[in-house]
């Protein structure tokens, strides 16, 4: 394998930038897992829905995805809140496998509603900066991905502040640690569950807005991200924020290098293999605490 170092450097850097947005997708998943202890299989489908929302905002109303990010986050917070409160919570009756099946059912519903509305065509939006690059030493970095990287860090910091200092954040952490105790001191557990799910879904909306300028959208696009997001969460450790960020970056780089060395097709195998190996050898991941 004779690859010039600047090509490898460029792949690593662009992988790092993409990985940060993956990290944002995974952040929502890991937050929901850490608090609700549920593996949300509908995460990918909700991401697809958010990408279509950003797509429609651009094509029907001419709103730039970066501008739409915050309003969409609000909208998807509401959607996530209602989905947890009205569907997942009541339907799963607290059983682990049930939740997985309910969220699978949800993902089938969302995915096929998208298919009925938008057909199976792949779509992308046309923004003037989609192809812009920034020179970084010998490497060229994609501008939308650089924005995605910065925004992910901003969201991560905001989430950290929210979880650490706000009353809601404290309530979320209390519920995550000790549900019964939290209920006893007067925390509305069902409400906190739904808020957490809402925050996780809002992260997806922001990730969708950041992804759209450089990724296409189709009804199945979430599937591609969901395994990546699960891998990141498992790699970083279920429920760990830092794990999601670090895992995201590792996966982003792995994907970029895998594609470079093994080719487009076989390169995708790295992510699934990491996923399997982590689950088999170290299920707590890099930063996980629980066995």
């Amino acid at each position, binding site marked *: 394998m004779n690859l010039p170092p600047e090509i490898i450097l460029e792949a690593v850097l662009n992988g790092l930038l993409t990985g940060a947005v993956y990290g944002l997708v995974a952040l929502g998943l890991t937050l929901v897992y850490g608090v609700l202890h549920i593996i949300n299989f509908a995460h990918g489908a909700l991401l697809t829905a958010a990408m279509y929302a950003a797509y429609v905002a651009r094509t029907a109303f001419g709103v730039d995805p970066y501008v739409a990010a915050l309003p969409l986050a609000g909208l998807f917070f509401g959607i996530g809140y209602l989905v947890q409160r009205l569907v997942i919570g009541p339907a799963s009756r607290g059983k682990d496998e049930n939740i997985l099946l309910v969220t699978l059912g949800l993902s089938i519903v969302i995915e096929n509603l998208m*298919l009925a509305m938008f057909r199976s065509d792949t779509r992308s939006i046309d923004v003037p900066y989609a192809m812009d690059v920034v020179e970084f030493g010998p490497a060229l970095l994609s501008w939308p991905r650089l924005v995605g990287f910065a925004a992910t860090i901003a969201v991560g910091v905001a989430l950290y502040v929210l979880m650490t200092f706000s009353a809601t954040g404290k309530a979320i952490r209390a519920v995550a640690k000790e549900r019964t105790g939290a209920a006893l001191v007067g925390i509305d557990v069902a409400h906190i569950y739904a808020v957490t799910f809402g925050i996780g879904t809002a992260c997806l909306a922001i990730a969708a807005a950041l992804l759209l300028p450089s990724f296409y959208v189709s009804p199945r696009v979430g599937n591609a991200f969901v395994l990546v997001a699960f891998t990141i969460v498992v790699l970083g450790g279920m429920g760990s924020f830092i794990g999601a960020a670090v895992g995201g970056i590792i996966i982003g780089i792995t994907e970029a290098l895998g594609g470079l060395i093994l080719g487009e*097709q076989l390169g995708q195998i790295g992510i699934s293999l990491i996923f399997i190996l982590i689950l088999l050898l170290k299920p707590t991941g890099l930063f996980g605490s629980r066995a």
Partner: protein
Amino acid sequence: MNRTTVLCALGLVAAVVFPLAAPNYLVNIGMLVFFVAFLGQSWNISGGFAGQTSFGHVVFFGTGAYTSTILQVTWGWNPWVAWPAAMLMGAIVGWGIAFLSFRAGLRGSYFALITLAFAEVFRILANSVPFTRGGLGMLIKSDPRPINFQFKDPIWLYYIALALCVVSLVVAWQLTRNRFGARLVAIRENEDAARALGIDVFAEKVRVLTLSGAMCAAGGTFYAQKYLYIDPSIAFGVDKSVEMLLVTMVGGAGTIFGPLIGSIALTTINEVTRGVASVVPALKNVQPLSLVVYGVMLVLIVARLPDGLTGLFRRKPRHA
């Protein structure tokens, strides 16, 4: 002769007579009903009876389809001889995945996710290695003679699918009667308690996934012989995994007739939406809506009917 025996005998007679009177497209639909019920039963044996929910059962289906097709196309085997070889490969893959996953102590959602990842690895490999011809897929030369496992009249594939379905029902029925099945149910209900009772939980789980893998692989070969074509996304795509899980969950996981009832229900919904779509031009894009209905049904069944549609027929709710 109790009521169930009479009903089963009547059902079997009806299923045997049906294609003699029905038009070809109905025979085809009937064939699909039994075939999907068979695949669902293979999922049910490990996912329903033993409670090991898998999201990647298609890995066995694809292994079977590719094994028999490669043996046939590349090595010139007769498909009837390649069929047991495909089942053997399915059993080996089932054994391997079970051995690795259960040795690592994966349970519940984690097991479901790792099976999904295994299926993905197989899909990518099938897309990349030379002996599967990658994304082009593999064509089986059309030569409709019974010796080639290819038939001019769809009725023969119907009867083979029916036979597969009946065999799978007998396997499931045996699981409700023998000690192996009882141990699986004990593991499903409470793994730690089962272990405390002296059941070798690891060995039983490996055994059931090996059996399930072999059955599902047999379905893969059948599929390849029916359509004479497979490619990586057909053979290892997540859709088939979901289909197997869906028919079983909708019909009733861990019940003998669950997958068959689920398959009948979902095929009916599918054909009705297809019919509506073809009659009303304004609704010609509603086909995906049948899957929306499936998704809603899955959520409702998990929420309200843990025994699936089968639970509706039972007088007393049974919770073993």
